């Protein structure tokens, strides 16, 4: 089972949770403040009513005036359907006015307001003390003080708060119904380039190296570095992979002909009974075929190592060697052939030329080039090998006095299996690979091979090997 964590799902959950929290916050704050406002308004309404009750207390017209209450002017209750309660007493505790059914309530000592239940309703009572009787001459100090209590059901407040709660909750729910799908859509839309990129990356295989992220992923700021890195990585991988595959295909292909020769030699030997001389000759032929095959294998492995090293997939500690010594080894190797053809190989250099390289690689290159030169130069002429330094390069020039290579053929001599003519193909026994391999090896070192040829005069191969690869 694969991991089922989804960025989209997690983001959506986060958005929904934060929206719910926001809605809850709005709800709590709105309800709290509105409730406070409504209570304050209710309190001031209570205060007004209490003052009205106080204002309805007046002195009688008697000789000895007493405090009376004008019952018929009592204002209507704050909440029409419910009864308000009031009570007024003077400083002696005499009850001057009292609504019907004033309950015996323990009024709070430290707050003017007291909440209580009466006849199944929540009531709030206000007690005002030291209220001077208003019915007196102006500028006369009050002689009587009243204590007024007024109570009214707190119903309007609770009803309003309940309604408010309903409205806000409904509003929030409605808003969430719109914003949540919107957020989900937006997130999905926003994540699409990422999904496209992932889907495209999933299509990559050894037969499809193309990352096709689409313009959206390319233009997405966060994804651009990723797509760029992936593309360049894929490019590198594809090149390495193709190189390996090509090498394998080429190797298999190039081995076919020598293997076919060896096989046919052995099979024709077995075709019928033969004399021991014939068998001996046949075995010698087979050994000869083997030697050619071995040489090809050796060259190909050298090439593979040099190419791998150039591609960075092979670490090699290269010691500093003298270019001259590698040339001398190759000349020694070819001296039997040179003697046989009556060709003199002349090497000249002034001072050692140190380069960093595997001596066997360079020996392979010189051997290939020298072998061609020795074979193509006429009998009793010389092949000249000249070494010198040119800036950062060690230069080796191999010149023969052979028939030369026509200008139109010159660019093709490094192609695999290219053979100038019949005689060359058979004599060198190289299957037309020597120059191709030499070029690849030299290029793996960051160097170059330049052929210069003048028909009738000779051919010069100029090889540059960087001193520090």
């Amino acid at each position: 089972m694969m991991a089922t964590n989804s960025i989209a799902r997690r983001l959506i959950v986060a958005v929904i949770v934060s929206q719910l929290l926001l809605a809850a916050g709005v709800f709590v704050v709105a309800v709290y403040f509105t409730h406070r406002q409504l209570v304050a308004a209710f309190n001031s309404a209570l205060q007004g009513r209490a003052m009205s009750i106080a204002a309805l207390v007046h002195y009688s017209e008697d000789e000895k005036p007493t405090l009376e209450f004008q019952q018929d002017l009592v204002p209507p209750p704050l909440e029409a359907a419910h009864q308000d309660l009031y009570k007024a007493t003077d400083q002696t505790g005499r009850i001057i006015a009292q609504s019907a059914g004033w309950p015996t309530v323990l009024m709070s000592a430290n707050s003017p307001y007291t909440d209580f239940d009466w006849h199944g309703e929540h009531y709030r009572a206000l007690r005002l003390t030291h209220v001077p009787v208003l019915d007196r001459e102006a500028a006369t100090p009050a002689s009587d003080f009243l204590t007024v209590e007024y109570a009214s059901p707190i119903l309007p407040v609770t009803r309003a708060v309940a309604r408010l709660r309903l409205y806000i909750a409904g509003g929030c729910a409605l808003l969430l119904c719109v914003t949540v799908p919107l957020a989900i859509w937006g997130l999905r839309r926003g994540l699409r380039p990422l999904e496209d990129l992932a889907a495209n990356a999933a299509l990559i295989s050894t037969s499809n190296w193309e990352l096709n992220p689409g313009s959206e992923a390319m233009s997405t700021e966060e994804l651009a570095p990723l797509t760029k890195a992936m593309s360049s990585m894929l490019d590198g991988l594809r090149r390495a992979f193709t190189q390996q595959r090509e090498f394998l295909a080429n190797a298999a292909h190039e081995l076919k002909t020598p293997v076919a020769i060896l096989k046919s030699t052995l099979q024709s030997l077995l075709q019928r009974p033969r004399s021991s001389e014939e068998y001996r000759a046949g075995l010698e032929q087979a050994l000869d075929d083997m030697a050619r095959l071995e040489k090809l294998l050796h060259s190909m492995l050298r090439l593979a190592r040099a190419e791998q090293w150039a591609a960075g997939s092979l670490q090699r500690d290269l010691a500093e060697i003298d270019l001259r010594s590698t040339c001398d080894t190759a000349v020694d190797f070819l001296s039997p052939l040179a003697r046989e053809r009556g060709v003199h190989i002349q090497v000249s250099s002034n001072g050692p030329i140190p380069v960093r390289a595997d001596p066997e690689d360079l020996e392979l290159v010189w051997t290939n080039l020298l072998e061609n030169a020795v074979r193509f130069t006429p009998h009793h002429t010389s092949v000249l090998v000249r070494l010198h330094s040119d800036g950062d390069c060690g230069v080796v020039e191999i010149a023969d006095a052979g028939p030369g290579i026509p200008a139109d053929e010159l660019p093709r001599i490094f192609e695999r299996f290219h053979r100038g003519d019949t005689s060359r193909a058979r004599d060198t026994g190289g299957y037309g690979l020597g120059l191709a391999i030499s070029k690849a090896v030299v290029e793996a070192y960051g160097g170059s091979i330049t052929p210069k040829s003048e028909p009738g005069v000779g051919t010069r191969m100029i090889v540059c090997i960087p001193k520090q690869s």
Partner: protein
Amino acid sequence: MRVLIVEDERRLAENIARSLRESAGYAVDCCFDGEDGLHMAETNPYDLLVLDLMLPKIDGLTLLTRVRSRGAQYPVLVLTARDEKQSVVALLNAGADDYLCKPFDLGELMARSKALIRRGKGQSAAVLKIADIEISTADLTVRRQGKPIPLTAMEYRVLEYLAHRPGAVVSKTELLEHLYDFNWERFSNVIEVYISGLRRKLEHDDTKLIHTLRGQGYMLGVG
């Protein structure tokens, strides 16, 4: 039978040639590049062309196309180091009759060569029958009613060639051209010797198998 091998790997060409000579009794010419090959293919009557694809000077496919465009009818067996479908299709479309991928088996090459030659002469069975005589091209033996008839190598070659074209008049020159390689003119007076040898070994008093048509040539057939 006479075969032309065009193959630039001299060693491979020689091995194939040796095999064809020894185990099929064919006359074989070898060429090592496309130019020589084309020249030989155009100037001599061959019974089979064994052609390498990658050749110096003129490549195999071009050679094949040229040879076919000039009306050569003999079968062509192509040797190739490639085995990609495309090149095989291109080869067959250019007029090749069969192909072998390197490295191939010499035995298979022999068998295919014999089959191609048979087909080229309009025969399909590997055992050719004339009256009560059976010629097995697989092991180069001749039998009458199961009993082997000992023939010399050259007698066998003459008989095999005639048996591939029963009822047809085969001239002495044609026999020489098809039984010897490019030195055939040196052997011009020996055909009669082989024919008389064959008559002695194959014919009874009452059946005549090899007929001589004066001034025209020989014909193999009953009656």
